[in-house]
């Protein structure tokens, strides 16, 4: 019997959604004749860092790291995963690009700590206590990981072999990847695991697919302004759909249910900075300059998932 493929999952600074997508891909994941799950923490098992460290270096064939890096323990775990895994996949948008937590990079460490520990209406902190990395409690010495205050994508910390976008990646895509690895073996390191096509290519609203000319955008709308037409391109209607520059490995799920693409799939090939390319793509569709002023919060709209992997990386000051 051939040796089983060893895989591992680790959740860094994320919500666990990517692990849920992996669980939804159960039929592929649970092909236990051919697969061995060497490590899956903290979502599935209660293994600790020591357990990951105890695995011999390079013993895991494919590692999936989901979530970004913002705490010192996440950095340590990312470096450990790199040592243990022959192939490391930045699994999901947070690991690949920073993701939603990456919006924190619009604020400084001080601002974030101030908001969380002093400023919210539910905060009661008369002693002004903020998290410390070490403190003594009676005879015990307690430690906490350090909060860096800046979100980093996995590639800023360790070398990454592959990227997979999606918030979370669709479970059918996860299953497909695992089946591909089992049947065709590991691919040589390359960038994104994707077909390289846009959401628009998968979207039934695409005017080009219907043989029509694309119309200029004559109004700026938000989802709260009413229900979009179910057939027409969302961009043409004035809803900021980022489908033209987002990878469509998801199959264009959001536009199918009247929700504009937010760009979680990551940039299509050739795009270095998702937000700036979105500025370029969206602005050139508008009818006139007055509409530019009506776009609500453009930086956070276009950098919703990608600020830490952008040319800026974070707010300048």
């Amino acid at each position, binding site marked *: 019997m051939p040796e089983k493929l060893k895989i591992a999952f680790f959740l860094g600074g994320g919500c666990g959604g990517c692990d849920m997508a992996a669980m939804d891909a159960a039929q592929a994941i649970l092909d236990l004749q051919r697969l061995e799950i060497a490590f899956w923490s903290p979502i599935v098992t209660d293994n600790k860092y020591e357990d990951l460290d105890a695995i011999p270096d390079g013993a895991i064939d494919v590692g999936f790291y989901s979530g970004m890096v913002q705490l010192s323990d996440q950095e340590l775990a990312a470096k450990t995963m790199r040592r243990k895994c022959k192939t490391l996949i930045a699994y999901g948008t947070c690991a690949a690009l920073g993701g939603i937590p990456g919006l924190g990079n619009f604020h400084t460490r001080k601002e974030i700590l101030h908001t969380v520990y002093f400023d919210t209406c539910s905060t009661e902190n008369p002693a002004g206590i903020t998290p410390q990395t070490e403190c003594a409690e009676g005879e015990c010495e307690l430690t906490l990981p350090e909060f860096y205050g800046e979100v980093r994508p996995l590639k800023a910390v360790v070398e990454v072999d592959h990227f997979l976008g999606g918030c979370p990646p669709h479970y059918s895509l996860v299953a497909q990847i695992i089946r591909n690895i089992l049947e065709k073996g590991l691919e040589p390191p390359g960038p994104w695991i994707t077909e390289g096509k846009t959401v628009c290519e998968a979207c039934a609203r695409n005017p080009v697919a219907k043989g029509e000319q694309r119309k200029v955008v004559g109004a700026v709308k938000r989802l709260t302004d009413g229900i979009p037409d179910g057939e027409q391109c969302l961009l043409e209607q004035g809803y900021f759909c980022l489908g033209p520059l987002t990878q469509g490995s998801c199959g264009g799920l959001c536009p199918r249910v009247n929700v504009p693409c937010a760009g979680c799939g990551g940039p299509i090939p050739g795009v270095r900075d*998702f937000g700036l390319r979105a500025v370029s793509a969206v602005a*050139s569709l508008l009818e006139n*300059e007055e509409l530019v002023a009506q776009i609500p919060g453009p*930086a956070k709209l276009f950098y919703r998932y990608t600020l830490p992997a952008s040319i800026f990386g974070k*707010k*300048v000051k």
Partner: protein
Amino acid sequence: MGDWKPKIVVFACNWCSYQGADLAGNLRYEYPSSINIIRVPCSGRVEPEFIVTAFKNGADGVFVSGCRPGDCHYKEGNHKAALRFHLLKRVLADVGIESERLGMAWISGSEGKRFAEIMTEFDKTIRELGPNTIKGSPSHSPEVSGW
């Protein structure tokens, strides 16, 4: 700070503004030596990524200059450039770069004097703003996005 001289990158379109700059030189109009001109086919070719990369690599100001409205060699390149310029200014402000560091003007091939005047004025604006703080900031290289 006393010895500091700004670095300004000007993207000038081949058909109008670059000719305007050429004319400024031919007619011996003076403009500051901080101006570094890059010739591009059209102002519509200047991606926001080019502009921000210039800032990241040390430019204190970036200026995009193209044909006058309606005169674009490619019909509507300068119109698209203007839309991107206004949107990019808003994004720059949100990310913490003074939006005045990005300038734009329509300068035709016959306006050598106006080119020199606008460049002198932009250089003054950048000198008042001081050095750009994004350069050398310890954020990650663009390659972290994986492509």
